[in-house]
């Protein structure tokens, strides 16, 4: 490789690299000189929003990040880790791949899955589950259907081939996401607590290796691209989208776990955003050491790549490994066995500098610390301004919603609504069972996976109601945490920790930043209440096109532990004659509901109230009841309200659908009773002999409980306003998404 003539660094070039004048001056101050072209590229990616979190880190630090079971701090490692007992750790994280998926849905989503899986196995953990939280515009829009199809295929093809079960997630539709879909991928892995490894470069004279795929021109400036609004010009940046190869990733997984298991290495980090640059800078900053990379030694896919390109390439399925001196051949033996590249490209030292050489000549020399998150990258406090729409949309007049309706028809319409209907069109395209740990597959409140050689299981769910967050970002974020905790609680678990994926618009717009800061505040309040610290995650700004920003969407990935396999609980009714109870209470609330969205095409109104202490008490009570062995089913009452929740209890175990007769004696408007989304409610069913035990338990805990009906028959009724045969409800619920997606 020869040094090619590099462009001169001009003001225009600096601007093209997404750096502002203030930042450029800071670079000059740090280096004591002007940066060259390669260095400019490095600063550009490392100080991009995507890598530096410059506009979010100050607020993120206000979130609760401590807990007795945490093995890593938020942002300290590639993923968060929680001690789950029995000498095991659960490693998990969620990350966005929104912009790549907007342009190239298949590869964008596939590489999103690949990236998050690498974050898990670089910690020494074997991935056991994958989840996806997806948001799109209306499925009536053909472009949206193209995106849905590509994203689902991309997630499926990558995870299915890699061999991780895709077990849960959400698929949510609203016009707010038309121009900028959200693709948030979460992965969960298990490691031995004494077998985990850090993403560190340390010591002097330790060899640094690049392993896995060769480096190509794909994905150059992916991180910078993710830090801009989507526009017409974005289409031209399609080359910033990476290409995934799940087969190579599978081999990389096995080889990585072997070198960790044989204790051959000091540290390892995935090459995701900003490739070699980010991994070298972050690992050496973390180890308070230095590293010199000989860029000409990197195996490349095509001739003529410049240091700039090699350093910024985001070619997938690569890792940077700091090897224990003397163990190079052992590492090579293992990578040879799996037919993967492993090449020494550098060495550690104690300089604190990330230096890059080409044929022995220095082409870049920057202190690691100034590049790495947690070091001295820029930190900004942005201006906030409450957007005018919030007070405007909070106004709500019940007179706009007539009560002379055919409630049976409305319920069928709701069951078929894209945000409520069965999502097997999506998850049947995923392998949800490989590695044979999946006890509860997609279709219940949370996925449940057993942990081999223990009596325990892990419950996991992702949640966020973007509409709530749009109408009230603070309470919306609280609700996202509360609902995800409620979901794992209904499966029998105690919530232990979260990972978050914060999807927002342009942070330089004060009204957007208001939503962000409010959401962080609300999330922090809720996490403190549930004692579920934030173990890490990802911030994705600039989710907007020329027309609008997406709803503020702080997606929560919740992890729960079930201490005894026999307490695993599903959401559907089980047996004829079982009694149905509502835990929590009904209120006259209708604002922000799926009902007014689906039937009246409105996204307005006050969001439902949320009392976090009450929510926690309800969840604790349900968990106590589950642990006492009397609960046959438990289902979170959320999107669609009571009528939809109860209908799902009847039909969501498709082959064993069973009816229910419900009587609720309350003075409430019918629409609020059926479809209002009052929080902190859970529907449970128990054997007819266990009803009193449940009531006693609730009374002891001072939690409202009411007997509302009985399971049985082949019809579903509520008072005298709903009465439907299951044979009408099943096709409405199950055939809807397939029919929508089959449109030309």
């Amino acid at each position: 490789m020869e040094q090619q003539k590099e462009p001169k660094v001009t003001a225009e070039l600096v601007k093209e690299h997404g750096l502002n004048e203030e930042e450029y001056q800071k670079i000059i101050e740090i280096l004591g000189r002007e940066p060259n072209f390669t260095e400019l590229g490095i600063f550009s990616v490392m100080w991009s929003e995507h890598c530096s979190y410059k506009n979010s880190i100050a607020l993120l630090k206000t979130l609760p990040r401590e807990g007795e079971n945490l093995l890593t701090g938020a942002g300290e490692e590639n993923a968060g880790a929680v001690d789950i007992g029995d000498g095991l750790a659960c490693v998990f994280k969620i990350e966005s791949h929104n912009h790549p998926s907007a342009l190239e849905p298949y590869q964008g989503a596939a590489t999103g899955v690949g990236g998050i899986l690498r974050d898990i196995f670089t910690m020494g953990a074997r991935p056991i589950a994958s989840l996806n939280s997806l948001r799109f515009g209306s499925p009536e829009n053909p472009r949206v259907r193209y995106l849905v199809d590509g994203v689902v295929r991309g997630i499926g093809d990558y995870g299915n081939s890699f061999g991780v079960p895709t077990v849960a997630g959400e698929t949510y539709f609203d016009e707010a996401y038309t121009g900028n879909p959200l693709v948030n991928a979460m992965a969960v892995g298990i490691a031995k607590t004494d077998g985990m490894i850090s993403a560190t470069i340390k010591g002097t004279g330790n060899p640094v290796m690049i392993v896995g795929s060769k480096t190509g021109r794909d994905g150059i400036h992916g991180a910078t691209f993710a830090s801009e609004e989507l526009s017409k010009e974005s289409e031209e940046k399609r080359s910033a989208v990476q290409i995934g190869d799940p087969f190579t990733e599978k081999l990389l997984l096995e080889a990585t776990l072997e070198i960790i298991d044989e204790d051959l290495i000091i540290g390892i980090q995935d090459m995701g955003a900003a490739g070699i640059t980010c991994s070298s800078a972050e690992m050496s900053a973390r180890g308070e050491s230095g590293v010199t990379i000989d860029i000409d030694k990197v195996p490349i896919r095509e001739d003529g790549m410049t240091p700039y390109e090699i350093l910024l390439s985001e070619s997938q399925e690569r890792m940077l490994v700091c090897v224990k001196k003397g163990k190079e051949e052992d590492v090579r033996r293992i990578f040879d066995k799996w037919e993967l590249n492993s090449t020494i490209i550098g060495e550690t030292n104690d300089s604190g500098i990330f230096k890059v050489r080409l044929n022995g000549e220095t082409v870049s020399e920057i202190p690691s610390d100034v590049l790495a998150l947690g070091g001295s990258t820029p930190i900004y406090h942005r201006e906030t301004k409450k957007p005018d729409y919030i007070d405007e949309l909070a106004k709500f007049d019940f007179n706009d919603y007539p009560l002379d309706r055919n409630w049976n028809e409305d319920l069928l319409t709701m069951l078929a609504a894209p945000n409520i209907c069965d999502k097997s069109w999506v998850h049947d395209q995923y392998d949800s069972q490989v590695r044979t740990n999946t006890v509860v597959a997609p279709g219940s409140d949370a996925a449940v996976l057993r942990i081999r050689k223990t009596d325990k299981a892990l419950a996991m769910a992702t949640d966020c109601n973007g509409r709530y967050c749009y109408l009230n970002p603070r309470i919306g974020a609280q609700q996202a945490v509360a609902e995800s905790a409620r979901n794992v609680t209904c499966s029998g678990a105690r919530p232990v920790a979260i990972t978050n994926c914060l999807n927002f618009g342009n942070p330089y717009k004060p009204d957007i930043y208001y939503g962000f800061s409010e959401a962080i505040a609300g999330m922090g309040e809720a996490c403190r209440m549930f004692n579920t610290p934030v173990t890490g995650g990802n911030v994705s700004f600039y989710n907007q096109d020329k027309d609008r920003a997406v709803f503020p969407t702080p997606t929560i990935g919740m992890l729960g532990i079930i201490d005894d396999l026999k307490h695993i609980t599903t959401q559907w009714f089980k047996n004829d004659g079982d009694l149905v109870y509502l835990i929590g209470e009904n209120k006259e609330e209708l604002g922000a509901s799926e009902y007014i969205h689906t039937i009246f095409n409105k996204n307005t109104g006050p969001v439902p109230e949320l009392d976090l202490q009450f929510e926690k008490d309800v969840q604790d009570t349900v968990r106590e009841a589950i642990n006492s062995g009397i609960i046959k089913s438990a289902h979170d009452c959320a999107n669609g309200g009571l009528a939809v929740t109860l209908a799902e209890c009847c039909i969501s175990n498709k082959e064993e659908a069973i009816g229910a007769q419900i009587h609720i004696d309350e003075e409430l408007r019918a629409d609020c009773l059926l479809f209002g989304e009052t929080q902190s409610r859970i529907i449970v069913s128990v054997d007819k002999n266990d009803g009193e035990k449940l009531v006693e338990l609730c009374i002891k805990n001072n939690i409202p409980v009411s007997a509302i009906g009985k399971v049985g028959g082949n019809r579903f009724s509520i008072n005298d306003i709903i009465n439907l045969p299951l044979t009408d409800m099943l096709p409405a619920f199950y055939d809807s998404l397939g029919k929508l997606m089959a449109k030309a």
Partner: protein
Amino acid sequence: MKFGVVTFPGSNCDYDAYTAIKVLGEEVEFLWHKSSDLLNSDVIILPGGFSYGDYLRSGAIARFSPIMKSVKEFAQSGGLVIGICNGFQVLLESGLLPGALLRNAHLRFAGKYIYIKVENNSTIFTSVCQPGEVLKIPIAHMDGNYYNFDGEIEYLKKQSQIIFRYCDKDGNISEAGNPNGSIYNIAGISNKEGNVIGMMPHPERAVENILGSSDGLKIFESIVKSFSKGMAIERA
């Protein structure tokens, strides 16, 4: 008896097959694709996954691996071989079983529990099943649409080589019960001699009730039972 589970690069159900045999309580060992040593296995499992990435036709590259040369010789001399999912694809590509597996008719990956009917329970692989028994076993594949010429299907029928057919919960062979468009609802076939079987559903994933079904265990139990009987005859 001893099971050998082949690991190709890209196999991802090798571990599931291995643990299923452990649940069964029999001896089991992994066989590496670059080796030609079957480690004295009595039965070979070719597991599911995406061997060598399957970027070409599924199973098309695996058949050239050193281990497959040994598996072929083993099968041709009467050794027991079961190919599951990608393993079935490899057996077809290797010429050990007739026909082909096309892309699923709806052109999408299909991952879910389905039902299969035991069409022939007098085989080594189904001897503990009742005639016409319905088994609940999951599938997870993109290329599971079995195809062969009409004449060949008639021949397979006549030779009782069709072992499993997709059906509904009640055992009715129907279009609705067919998850991938397979001709004649074929889910699994054997060779003429009956010592090699290929099937798309994953019996190794259905060996414990906590996972939703233990029907898959019957296939492995059948193998053990047939094998010990065979040994008894030989010894007598």
